[in-house]
């Protein structure tokens, strides 16, 4: 087999455009590689979508398909939530209107807010990232394609489950934040709030799954040469967003679990009479809720950071400040949550801290806005529809930010809280800061995704109707809020001076809706009528514009080598670089691998580190998603047998998903030989059975999730401690330190044992591996048994008071983690007996070892909280 001379780079199609010069509208877009037909044919075959109208569609795994489905589904939810808003505005058009009653109105604002916050913006942003990131970063596919499929189906089924509440006339009605005690069993006795907690819980799992994938993609799977200093700003934004999703959604899942336990099995987390605290729910919810709005804003600002330079025909001014502003915004957003609780009665000094942080976050936000303005004003703006929406973002979001600084001041907030002023503020920042950028992104990237440009004339109508309609709808709400109109009231009395503002606001809402309707028309019209878009209709700067439109499943046949932040403007070709990198990208295209290959690179400099196999189509993620939704859905109605069935389906799905491909010994030897030859040729490891780097990163992020969940429980524990005079209250006693100590010893031994198992399989000793795995399972199960026995000695359960609830919850959480570890061991033991593992192939063993080592820390932390702190505090 011969490979073309790796030193012959293509001739550049244009010289690099000088730094401060206006980029011509028409530029020649370099091809990443001339797609030679035999290579393209082989790659197309390797990356083809599975056949079959039903099973094939369910199994389809390729990022364009998965991301596109997430975006489409999210947009449909957006339209539905918009209809709810129109009904509310129609109800409020005049005082004492009778279009809907109070109960229906409560359901409408709950469903509107919940759908927009959980089922529209976050999935839309994640779906878009799944579609865009491989192309933008110059690679072929996301690291965990099956996780993306799982994310989509949990999102879809969770959303459908949520809306099925309409069919049973049990619509959640406690707001999108479901404050206790209103959302508790006493004041919401039906299943409506169980719908809210469990159906949305599924969607939250979907968000976290996609977040894990996005982090690993951005940090470890970029084109060679795309160092952190050359990362597209949208990728910086998504990196921060994905980490924020992990840190924010996990506390919400734990909080939702706690409230659901209060409702279903009698725990007392939020019941003040039993030592619980309704304010604890508010803390836990807003620890999620505030970062959530930045999770919605950051991807949007990343989109704007890509769009404005292209339509200003100038490289962005202030790349480093903008990137760092995004990073800083992500960190600071976790220190703002109490500003949603200023009127709850918290200590003034706490209010001051959060007020300071809430106002100071305007600094990094302002840095971004000024960078965009400077780029726009220094360039030669071309006012296509995407740029109009970007300008709409600038105007609207800044106005929302100004009112945000106003409500960040505690005395002002005490007046404005729960009034329409806040409704106006939040819509200015969310529609201005997320929805306008989403539309900008749709107009900008639609030609790449579908191959068709959206019509510009209809686009102008779309924009102006939305922009005018939005401001007509929401600006008057500032005024009516300051005049005293409260939010979440289904009607109001005449003669308060609110009538005209509500009337105008309703008219504006319908104009806004008409604008959105124009977009829907534009989408279908353009798909049917418009001619095909070229590769780069906007003369864009980033890598996705070098592929054909729509892109092939594998993106790039030869991966590019990156030398600048705006590759299509900075470089006329993509093949120059260190000789080793040239060899890697060429061999990756030409070597006849029998599986889907992608490249893993280092974090800082994107040096090629590993060629990995990304997983192919599979039905098992869909099965796992069905299992999860079955569990959550049946728990709404406490149908335990069905939940049990759901658990079986989920386990089947997870096991099937991770089932290693095994062939006969001769074929395995042949494959190993082929991989070694490939490794010799390119000089970096080849992992066809699971990337060591990607898989380990995935396990580390999973452990991070567990750590965040543990921290959430710990926060709740100490908060409840402070709410109670005596601790434990009611004279309750723990069973003593003997069994926790026994468990700790067993886990410490296990940590040593799993380390040995890693070492022996690294040497190829399968017999020893089986022995160490057996001992590890025995030790892990022993620690679990010690914990269960210790809990069996308790003379109180989770229903007695808040202490009992948090005690049992922490213990149960630790038990679940240990059960998972034993499950991993059993899986590994089975496959070690089947002969899968050898010196080259043992990623699952390494990950299992890491998991058990982390369990030592988990055990120490949780048992210290449960058994030691009552004596200390």
């Amino acid at each position, binding site marked *: 087999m011969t490979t073309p001379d790796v030193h012959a780079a293509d001739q550049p199609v244009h010289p690099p455009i000088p730094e401060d010069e206006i980029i011509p509208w028409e530029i020649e877009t370099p091809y990443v590689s001339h797609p030679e037909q035999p290579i393209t044919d082989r790659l197309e075959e390797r990356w083809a979508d599975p056949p079959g109208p039903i099973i094939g569609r369910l199994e389809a795994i390729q990022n364009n398909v998965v991301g596109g489905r997430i975006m489409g589904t999210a947009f449909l939810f957006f339209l539905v939530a918009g209809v709810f808003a129109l009904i509310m505005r129609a109800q409020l058009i005049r005082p004492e209107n009778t279009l809907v009653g109070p109960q229906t109105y409560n359901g409408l604002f709950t469903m509107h807010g919940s759908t927009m916050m959980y089922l529209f913006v976050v999935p839309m942003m994640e779906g878009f990232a799944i579609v865009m990131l491989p192309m933008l970063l110059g690679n072929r596919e996301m690291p965990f394609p099956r996780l993306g499929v799982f994310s989509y189906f949990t999102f879809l089924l969770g959303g459908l489950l949520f809306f099925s509440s309409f069919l049973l006339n049990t619509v959640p009605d406690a707001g999108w934040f479901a404050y206790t005690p209103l959302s508790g069993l006493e004041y919401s006795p039906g299943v409506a709030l169980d719908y809210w907690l469990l159906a949305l819980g599924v969607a939250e799992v979907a968000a976290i799954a996609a977040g894990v994938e996005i982090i690993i993609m951005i940090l470890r799977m970029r084109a060679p040469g795309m160092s952190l200093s050359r990362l597209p700003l949208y990728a910086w934004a998504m990196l921060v967003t994905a980490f924020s999703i992990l840190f924010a959604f996990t506390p919400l899942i734990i909080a939702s679990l706690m409230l659901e336990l209060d409702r279903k099995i009698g725990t007392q987390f939020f019941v003040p009479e039993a030592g619980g605290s309704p304010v604890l729910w508010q803390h836990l919810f807003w620890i999620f809720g505030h970062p959530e709005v930045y999770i919605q804003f950051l991807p949007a600002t990343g989109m704007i950071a890509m769009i404005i330079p292209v339509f200003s025909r100038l490289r962005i001014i202030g790349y480093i400040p903008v990137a760092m502003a995004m990073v800083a915004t992500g960190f600071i957003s976790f220190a703002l949550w109490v500003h949603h609780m200023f009127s709850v009665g918290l200590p003034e000094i706490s209010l001051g801290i959060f007020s300071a942080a809430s106002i100071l976050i305007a*600094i990094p936000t302002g840095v971004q806005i000024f960078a965009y303005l400077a780029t726009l004003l220094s360039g030669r703006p071309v006012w296509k529809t995407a740029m109009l929406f970007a300008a709409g973002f600038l105007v609207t979001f800044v106005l929302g930010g100004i009112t945000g600084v106003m409500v960040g001041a505690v005395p002002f907030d005490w007046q404005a809280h729960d009034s329409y002023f806040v409704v106006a503020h939040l819509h200015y920042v969310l529609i201005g800061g997320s929805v306008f950028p989403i539309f900008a992104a749709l107009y900008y990237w639609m030609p790449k995704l579908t191959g068709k440009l959206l019509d510009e004339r209809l686009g102008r109508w779309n924009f102006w109707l939305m922009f005018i309609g939005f401001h007509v709808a929401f600006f008057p709400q500032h005024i009516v809020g300051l005049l005293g109109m409260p939010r979440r009231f289904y009607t109001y009395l005449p003669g308060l001076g609110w009538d005209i503002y509500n009337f105008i606001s309703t008219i504006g809402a319908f104009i806004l809706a008409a604008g959105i309707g124009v977009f829907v028309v534009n989408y279908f019209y353009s798909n049917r009528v418009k001619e095909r878009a070229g590769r780069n209709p906007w003369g864009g700067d980033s890598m996705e514009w070098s592929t054909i439109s729509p892109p092939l499943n594998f993106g790039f046949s030869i991966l590019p080598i990156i030398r600048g932040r705006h590759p299509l403007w900075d470089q006329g070709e993509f093949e120059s670089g260190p000789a080793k990198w040239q060899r890697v990208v060429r061999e990756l295209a030409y070597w006849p691998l029998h599986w889907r290959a992608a490249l893993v690179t280092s974090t800082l400099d994107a040096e090629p580190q590993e060629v990995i196999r990304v997983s192919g189509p599979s039905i098992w993620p869909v099965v796992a998603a069905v299992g999860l939704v079955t569990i959550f859905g049946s728990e709404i109605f406490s149908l335990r047998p069905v939940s049990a069935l759901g658990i079986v389906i989920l386990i089947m799905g997870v096991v099937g998903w991770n089932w290693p491909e095994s062939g006969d010994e001769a074929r395995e030897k042949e494959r190993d030989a082929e991989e070694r030859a490939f490794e010799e040729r390119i000089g970096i490891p080849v992992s066809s059975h699971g990337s060591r780097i990607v898989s380990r990163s995935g396990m580390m992020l999973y452990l991070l999730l567990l750590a965040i969940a543990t921290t959430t429980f710990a926060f709740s524990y100490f908060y409840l401690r402070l709410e109670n005079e005596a601790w434990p209250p009611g004279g309750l006693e723990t069973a003593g330190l003997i069994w926790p100590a026994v468990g700790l010893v067993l886990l410490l031994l296990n940590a040593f044992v799993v380390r040995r198992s890693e070492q022996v399989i690294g040497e190829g000793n399968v017999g020893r591996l089986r022995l160490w795995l057996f001992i590890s399972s025995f030790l892990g199960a022993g620690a679990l048994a010690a914990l269960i026995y210790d809990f069996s000695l308790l003379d109180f359960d989770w229903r007695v008071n808040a202490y009992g609830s948090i005690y049992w919850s922490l213990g149960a959480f630790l038990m679940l983690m240990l059960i998972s570890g034993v499950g991993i061991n059993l899986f590994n033991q089975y496959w070690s007996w089947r002969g899968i593992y050898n010196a080259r192939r043992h990623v699952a063993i390494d990950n299992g070892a890491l998991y058990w080592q982390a369990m030592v820390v988990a055990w120490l932390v949780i048992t210290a909280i449960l058994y030691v702190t009552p004596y200390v505090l």
Partner: protein
Amino acid sequence: MSHRTYSDTADSAAERRREWAGFLIPPIAWAVYFVIVYLADEFSCMLTDISLMVAGRSLTYLLSLAATVVTIAVIAYAGRLGYRTWQDADVGNVPNWQRDQEADRRHFMGVSGMLLSGLFLILTFGVAAAVLFLDSC
């Protein structure tokens, strides 16, 4: 097969650690500071039967003051790391895409470290103003 990379020398590893330190220390230090002062104030306001005074100031105040001073010092140190990284990068007036990859990355990490240090110093002062000047629960 080893995972060693081209520039995987002891010196470059130390330089990379400095780059990451300058980049990550400011936000993490500020986050830890925020948690400490917030929890200290919540605890002291909720545990009203315990009020330890030292030199006319509450223990919580002194803890917050100490945390503020330490945080400022740590962030300033990180800023200095960023400054040194930026100095070492020495990219001159060359456009971004013509720079040596390592120098460009180092320039980026150094400038980023300095910017983050500056911003999080301001944030520390902002939170400290609330903690040290407000005196009520």
